[in-house]
């Protein structure tokens, strides 16, 4: 052999300071030279630390969890990565759910361009869809890891509320986008306050029954209340007029006070299964 790796060159190689061509020469040489191979063994702390760092980086790349679109969106909105993962796992934040929601509100708003009665259908459906989305965010029947989640120290109430906020934000945004296409300006906003009122009642009921069931109870009661009006040639203004909007504000405030007020027993929200 014409040359051997000098101790200085070996040190430079170990700490990653040797340029590409020279590093390649060293690598080719040590394949055949046992003597020089010993020089390159990570014998000092710097080399061992660097090796550990590189290995950690490789492991991190290999084990990088798959990040969904919703998770990316939450991280973009400054939600910490760990919580973004917990929120994005909500059944009603899955892409399939959001596509279904968009299809219903988008389809109904498009139909309202053809026939006025679909405007009323949109305004009746919109609050119920918000309730269904929130009710599906967490609970024994739709969340596959519900049972396991309940046995972990992560606060259930926190998870429930965080998911509610995330789901509502996305769901309201999609519904509002569809509502913009409605020609009746009152109809375009009339669904919003009743939506908040129904969601508040659902969350309040979750103190005693599980969230999935609470959502079902609220939806059935709401449908029962509006069905009779629908059969009597009702209009958006006659069902969702001023008094109903005021009542919705009152219900939201009362529920909010019970849930988050000074005497709220937040930790007492029951999570039956």
């Amino acid at each position: 052999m014409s040359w051997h790796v000098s101790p200085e060159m070996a040190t430079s190689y170990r700490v990653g300071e040797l340029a590409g061509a020279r590093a390649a020469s060293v690598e080719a040489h040590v394949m055949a030279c046992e003597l020089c191979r010993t020089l390159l063994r990570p014998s000092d702390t710097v080399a061992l630390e660097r090796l550990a760092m590189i290995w950690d980086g490789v492991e991190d790349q290999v084990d990088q969890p798959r990040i969904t679109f919703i998770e990316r969106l939450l991280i973009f909105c400054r939600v910490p990565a760990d919580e973004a993962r917990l929120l994005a796992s909500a059944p009603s934040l899955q892409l399939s759910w959001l596509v279904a929601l968009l299809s219903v509100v988008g389809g109904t708003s498009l139909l309202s361009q053809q026939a006025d009665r679909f405007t009323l259908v949109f305004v009746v459906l919109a609050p119920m869809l918000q309730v269904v989305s929130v009710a599906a965010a967490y609970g024994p029947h739709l969340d596959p890891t519900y049972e396991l989640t309940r046995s972990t120290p992560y606060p259930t109430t926190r998870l429930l509320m965080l998911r509610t906020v995330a789901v509502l934000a996305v769901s309201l945004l999609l519904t509002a986008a569809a509502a913009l296409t409605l020609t009746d300006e009152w109809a375009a906003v009339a669904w919003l306050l009743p939506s908040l009122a129904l969601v508040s009642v659902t969350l309040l009921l979750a103190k005693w029954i599980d969230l999935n069931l609470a959502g079902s109870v609220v939806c059935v009661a709401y449908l029962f209340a509006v069905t009779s009006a629908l059969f009597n040639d009702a209009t958006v203004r006659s069902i969702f007029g001023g008094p109903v909007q005021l009542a919705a504000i009152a219900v939201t405030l009362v529920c909010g006070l019970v849930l988050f007020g000074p005497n709220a027993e937040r930790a007492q929200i029951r999570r039956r299964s």
Partner: protein
Amino acid sequence: MSQGVNVTELSKRFARTQALDGVTFRVGDGVTGLLGPNGAGKTTLLRILATVLAPDSGEVQMLGLSPADVRERQQIRRRLGYLPQDPGFQRGFSVFDFIDYVAILKEMSNRKQRRDEVRRVIELVDLTSVSGKRIRALSGGMRRRTALAAALLGDPDFLVLDEPTAGLDPEQRLRFRELVSLAGEGRAVVLSTHQTEDVAALCRDVVVLHQGRIQFQGSPSELTNYAAGKVWFAEQRDPRANLAWRTGDGRYRNLGDPPAGVEAVDPTLEDGYLLLVGLAAEELAA
């Protein structure tokens, strides 16, 4: 050494069904097996021990803490590992994703430490080669091991395993037994199973539950001895036997009070369990 689990007069009712009826027992360090037929109340009991479900009445003390108190319940959960009977998985998650997700729920906030811990438990259940695979593409046994790995996160002081060997092949079951017996050193492990072989191989104590009541608590050998002198072979099903079945060699294995003159054979744990549960069912019917 953990402080174990004390259960006193525990009752739980679902509508018209009395799932647990005054259950009292103690679990110390080591593996305790919970045996019982379907509908005996095993899963209800384990869900209460896993702090997922609250009892209607009675008292539970785990690791010296009471799950009835909100703060103590949080402390218990920090030291608890739970494998549900039917663990669900988030759609699209890989093995690593799922265990990392559970680790976040277990308050492991340091990303480096969390991922190291996730890798450790994946290696423990021998799933390193498939850690990047989607769970829905895995076999039932591998899914079960994934859920077991999640239960082992953070080296918990108390493990609750609901039918952990369901769906595992014999080789996997052997590996599982090795894992659980190691886990049972210096901590309390409660596992429910239909497999009396698992109890015989693993457990220091066994509790037999039938229709919400405890029928037996003791060591596996004591349960085996319950059938001592009550097992015999015959060419025909003996009408005096409480239970009988045809074995591979064509003879009938009879359990019950043997007639005079027949030679009793050594009982197995399964004989003891079947006799106990069979007699309990007869008593309840009467």
